[in-house]
């Protein structure tokens, strides 16, 4: 156990910080043209991706030919810590960089790597991830979107929903059913579909907060034809890819939640005295307790995340990692709620700014956090996973 990393890791940190200071997009540049969805690539974002890729800083854990530098897990952690601390997004197409590109690199052929994976890494294309459907949310294997192989083409019919960034993406990494006769986990494949193909229709689903810049969409596929060569990997290995793709950078995904919590907790502690000022002693004590609890949750998430990471970095199993999504998303919600309740009726005021990255008020933030507790395996699913996979309780 140690509070700091060893000298070689700190050298790595300094090297990255020096590079970052020189090449990072400025805050003004980012604010002037913010990314409006999770597949929108403003000009600064395209330039930034290219610079990261060329310098080997895009995915430090990968080999140089994939835009990396063979960094170890601890170095990758340090890299992400510093990017987040600097307030610079690593990408404005997180599903593309985090899931789609690595999946194509792992499973796709050379043409797909050239036409899809590398363009994502270089900030030239953005992808969206076609997974959830109206009848297949937490239970992804129930998906019904059909891709029927007819000669040298797939004909695709069906509907996706909750598709982040579909309104800006160049293509979709589409999970679809290619063998309706097979057991439900087996008949699923992945096909790459350009979003401008005839028969693809995107209908944004504005969210309860920030409706002017929707990120979520419904995507309808009606007789969409794509060449059979758009199949990624083998027929029927979609389920393996869904599990594998979600495991990319598995050791690091917790950091985003933890760093976000730290920042939010810091803001809450800084703002709280102002709101506490005019309260009576009893109300103040009650609110103070809620604020301290929220702060403690953020610290607990940080310690739990780093503890799990230390096990992961040593190559051991880290059951903590199964807890992090649940914990961080619920802690974010509790923290926002503590802030909102502290503001009383004033907390009802809408934030003045429109746009995708406004300074949400705590109450707006509270509603936004439900994106975290509902998506990517709801908190209820997370508890089931912990109970069954980590604790070994029998399936009901």
């Amino acid at each position, binding site marked *: *156990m*140690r*509070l*700091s*990393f060893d000298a070689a890791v700190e050298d790595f940190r300094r090297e990255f910080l020096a590079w970052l200071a020189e090449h990072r997009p400025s805050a003004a540049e980012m604010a002037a043209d913010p990314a409006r969805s999770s597949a929108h690539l403003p000009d600064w974002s395209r330039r930034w991706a290219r610079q990261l890729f060329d310098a080997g800083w895009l995915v430090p854990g990968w080999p140089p030919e994939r835009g990396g530098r063979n960094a170890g897990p601890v170095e990758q952690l340090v890299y992400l810590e510093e990017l987040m601390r600097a307030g610079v997004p690593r990408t404005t197409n997180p599903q593309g960089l985090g899931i789609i590109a690595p999946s194509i690199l792992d499973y796709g052929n050379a043409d797909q790597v050239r036409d899809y994976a590398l363009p994502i890494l270089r900030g030239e294309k953005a992808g969206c991830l076609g997974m959830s459907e109206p009848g297949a949310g937490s239970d992804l294997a129930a998906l019904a979107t059909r891709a029927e192989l007819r000669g040298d083409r797939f004909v695709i019919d069906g509907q996706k929903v909750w598709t982040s960034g579909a309104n800006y993406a160049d293509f979709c990494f589409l999970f679809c059913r290619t063998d309706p006769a097979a057991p439900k986990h087996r008949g699923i494949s992945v096909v790459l579909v350009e979003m401008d193909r005839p028969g693809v229709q995107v209908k944004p689903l504005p969210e309860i907060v920030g409706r002017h810049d929707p990120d979520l969409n419904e995507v309808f596929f009606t007789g969409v034809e794509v060449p059979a060569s758009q199949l990624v990997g083998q027929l029927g290995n979609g389920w393996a890819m869904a599990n594998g793709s979600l495991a990319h950078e598995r050791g690091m995904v917790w950091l985003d939640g933890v760093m976000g919590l730290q920042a939010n907790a810091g803001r809450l*502690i800084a703002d*709280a*005295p102002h709101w*506490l000022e005019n309260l009576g002693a009893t109300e*103040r004590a009650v609110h*103070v*307790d809620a*604020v*301290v*609890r929220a*702060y*403690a949750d953020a*610290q*607990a*998430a940080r*310690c*739990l995340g*780093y*503890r799990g990471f*230390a*096990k992961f970095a*040593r190559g051991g199993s880290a*059951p*903590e990692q199964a*807890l992090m999504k*649940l*914990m961080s998303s619920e802690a974010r919600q509790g923290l926002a709620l503590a802030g909102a309740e502290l503001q009383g009726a004033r907390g009802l005021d809408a934030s003045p700014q429109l746009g995708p990255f406004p300074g949400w008020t705590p109450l707006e933030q509270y509603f936004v956090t439900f994106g975290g507790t509902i998506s990517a395996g709801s908190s*209820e699913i*997370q*508890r*089931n996973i*912990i*109970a*069954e996979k*980590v*604790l*070994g*309780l*029998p*399936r*009901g």
Partner: protein
Amino acid sequence: MDLELSEEQSELRDGVRRVLEEQCPPALPRAVHEGDETGAALWRQMVALAWPGVAIAEAQGGLGLGAVELCLVAEELGREVAPGPFLATATQLAPLLQEAGSSALASERLGRIAAGALTGTVALAEQDRWELGRIACEARREGGGFRLTGHKTGVFDGATADEIAVVARGDEGLGVFLVPGDELKAKPRRLLDPTLALADLTLDGVDVPAERVVIAPGPAAERAVSRALEVATVALALATVGACRRIFEQTLEYAKVRRQYERPIGSFQALKHRLADMYLAVERATALGYFAALTLAEDDPRRAEAASLAKAEAGDCQRLLVGEGLQLHGGIGFTWEHDLHLWLMRAKAGDALLGGATEHRARLARQLGLVAA
């Protein structure tokens, strides 16, 4: 930050666990509850293994390890509801003596603690509040030494410790005075968890000669007491988490084997979600506990905040684990015959002593500037 035990630390933990599983089966704390045991043999075993001196310098005869290892032993002792003088001697008195610098008195006593020749404790709380600002016990200069007058409560091993470090207030602030246990009037408390022995002390003009003044009244003593209290607090937090982890393990096991409606009760989602929450509570309290231990080991400026975070978290953890652990065991956990209550009572005690979760959140509020200090 690396928050996982090193190889040496894991070995120490495994070694301690092996010894305790053998020397401190549930029958031992049960016998203490039922009045036929004090745990003296277990203490002799701990002394033979040099545990009292785990965090005492090698030069003083200890193992020369740090706060992480100290807390690790405390966690394991909590796990087995072990009785005995370890908490009071090794996590309360020894750290306070270590804060006294290089005084001959402190050094000599640390040597004897490490050798297992001395047990001790710290008398700090008054009216069961472990807050320095509330200490009213008086230390008046008398001849070359001091005369102590006042009341102390909730003193760990207060009726049995060889030496008691009394924290009392002089004209220049708090001071620390080492008094032989048999010179103090101690009233043992009858506790729901007798594996922890508490006593209330009355000091009606106890004379302390100059050579028994550990730290003379003044700001240095106040700082030393705060820092030592941080060590005791984190050790107790982890001891409490250790008890909670055992409650969790037993409840999980029970949910897997207990069948109703022709299926294990652990297959019902209503129980699964509660067990997942219990597991999360134990893991987060462990992580915050070891973070705090690490800030002590490296003397990081966050140590006071981390200690309060750890203790508050341990308190919240036991609140969930005791309630859910008992509820999910159903009727069997409600019986004296079943061992579960041993851990339930220890976990409750671990929260209430050295300041509970509410008190530590109040401290955090002051540290974070949310309320006036």
